[in-house]
Structures are given as C-alpha cells and as structure tokens.
C-alpha cells in the first residue's frame, strides 16, 4: 500500500513537472516572436541576428529542460 502511494506521488509529481514546459513555450515564443517583429521592421539586419535567435531560444529552452529533468528524476531516481 505504501509503495503504491509513493508510486502515485511519483507519477503526480512527474506530471506536475510537465507544467514547466508551458513556461519554456512562452519563453521560446517570446524570443521567436520578437525576432520576427524586429526582422520585419529591418529585414536587411535579420540575417546577421539568427545566431542570437538560436542562442536566445536555447537559453529559454534550458529552463524547460530542467522541469523535464525533475520529471525524470522523480520517475527513475527518487
């Protein structure tokens, strides 16, 4: 019984950790959207800034990855 309770807690916790994905989605969308609005205002400068677009997306995505990491730890390590 107690083992099942722990198992249940793990599943609920891992599911809750997935909410972090929403935050990462907002962050990535914010970066990409702002890049696009800037690129449409000044298309000639857009090509030089794609590197920063991907760096920004990668950093925003990293925080979503930590929630994935928490879910993995709950499922397999705790």
């Amino acid at each position, binding site marked *: 019984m107690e083992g099942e309770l722990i198992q249940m807690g793990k599943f609920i916790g891992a599911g809750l950790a997935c909410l972090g994905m929403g935050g990462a989605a907002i962050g990535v969308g914010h970066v990409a959207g702002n890049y696009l609005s800037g690129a449409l205002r000044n298309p000639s400068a857009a090509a030089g800034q794609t*590197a920063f677009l*991907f*760096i920004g*997306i*990668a950093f925003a*995505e*990293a925080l979503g*990855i*930590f929630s*994935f*990491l928490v879910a993995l730890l709950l499922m397999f390590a705790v």
Partner: protein
Amino acid sequence: MADATGGFNIKPMDQFVVTPLFGGDVVHWYTPTNVTLWMFLTVASVAGLMLVATRGRAIIPGRGQSVAELAYGFIYKMVEDVAGKDAVRFFPYIMTLFMFILFANVLGLIPWAFTTTSHIAVTAVLALAVFLTVTALGFILHGASFLKLFWISSAPLPLRPVLAIIEIISYFVRPVSHSIRLAGAMMAGHAVAKVFAGFAGALGLASFIPIIAVTALYGLELLVALIQAYVFTILTCVYLKDALHPHH
C-alpha cells in the same frame, strides 16, 4: 516504465534499450552493443563525407564535395561570428562536434536505427568535455582573472555579490542543460513518433490519420535533428567566447 495494460500496447521507450550485438545480455564496458554499431556508422559517414567525397579536391566541386564545403564554411563562419577571430584555432574541435552530433541525429531517424545522442550518457560526455576544455582554457589564458567572469563590473556594487552567486550557479549548470537539451529533444521526439505509430496499429480503418500525423512529425524531427546539432555547436562557441574574453 510501467507496463502498458490498455487496449493497445505501446512501448515508446523500448527503442532506447542498449543490447549487445552478438547475443548474451550482460553489458561490459568492452561489449559491442547497438550503440557501438551506430556510433561507428556515424563516424564512418562523417569520414565518408569529409574524406572520401572531397578526395578529388576538384576546383569545380561535385555533389559530395559541395555538401562538405557548405558544412565547413557554415561552421567556420559561425565560429568566427560568435566566438571571435581568435577562436578559429578551436575550429577543428567544434567542426568535429557538429558533424558527429548531426550525423548521429540524422542516422537515428532511419527506421530501426538507434539514436546514440538520445542517451544522456553520450551527450553528457560531449558536454563535459566542452565544459572542462573551456574552463581549463580560461584559467590557462587568464589565470585568476578568469574569475572576473563572475564579477560583473558594469552592475551597481551592492548588487555584484548577488549576481556573482547567480553567475556561478549558471556556470556550473551549463553542462547539465547542454547535455540534457540534446538528449531530451532526441528522446522525446522519437518517443512521440513511436506513440503515434502505435495509434496507427490500434485504430484499424481510421489509421490513415496517425500515419499522416507521423509523417508530418518525421519532417519536424528532421528539423529538430539539424537544429539541435546547430544549437549544441553554437552554445559551445558562446562558452568558448566566455573563456577567451571573460570581461563583460
């Protein structure tokens, strides 16, 4: 993973199991496994593209040589743009990283293939190598003044200790996010494709809907495979820039 006990039996994580190539089920460090095989194929394809296809050294390049030259020029420009002109001496390392990750990702998309980069053990070694190289390089080039990386002199003085703590934490979290980003993206994408493929088996006559979906997902996965290789390399360049020029 819990066993799937529903009406259909989808085991999306089975594709990531490491199995020995020649029978048996004990994996020692020297046992040839499917990871070994696909890692070898990755290295062989990179060598095939970069060595065999460019062997002619034609002035007007053929198809293979064009692709190799495109990849070379693309990464060279990225190193120059992001990490600076003096980072060009680390270009061979960054090019190796890019080609290895790119081919591991793309070869993993072949049906029944094994994606070596979906294992955190593989990506963690790549990310730790970058982390240790960059840290050692920073201390070798700048000595103790490399620590100024954490002391942001443009911020107000009372804020600096707080920022230093945040910077130190974010510095040591780098290899974690660097490795899990690649492994997570690869693993998640392949698991999703497998789940959709499982729907196709369960839906009977309506199975054309998940088949269309899985085809679209496959295209997306190809994009993700390219972008993740690019992101891994560009972040390596960013970290390298921090080591070469630690002053904010």
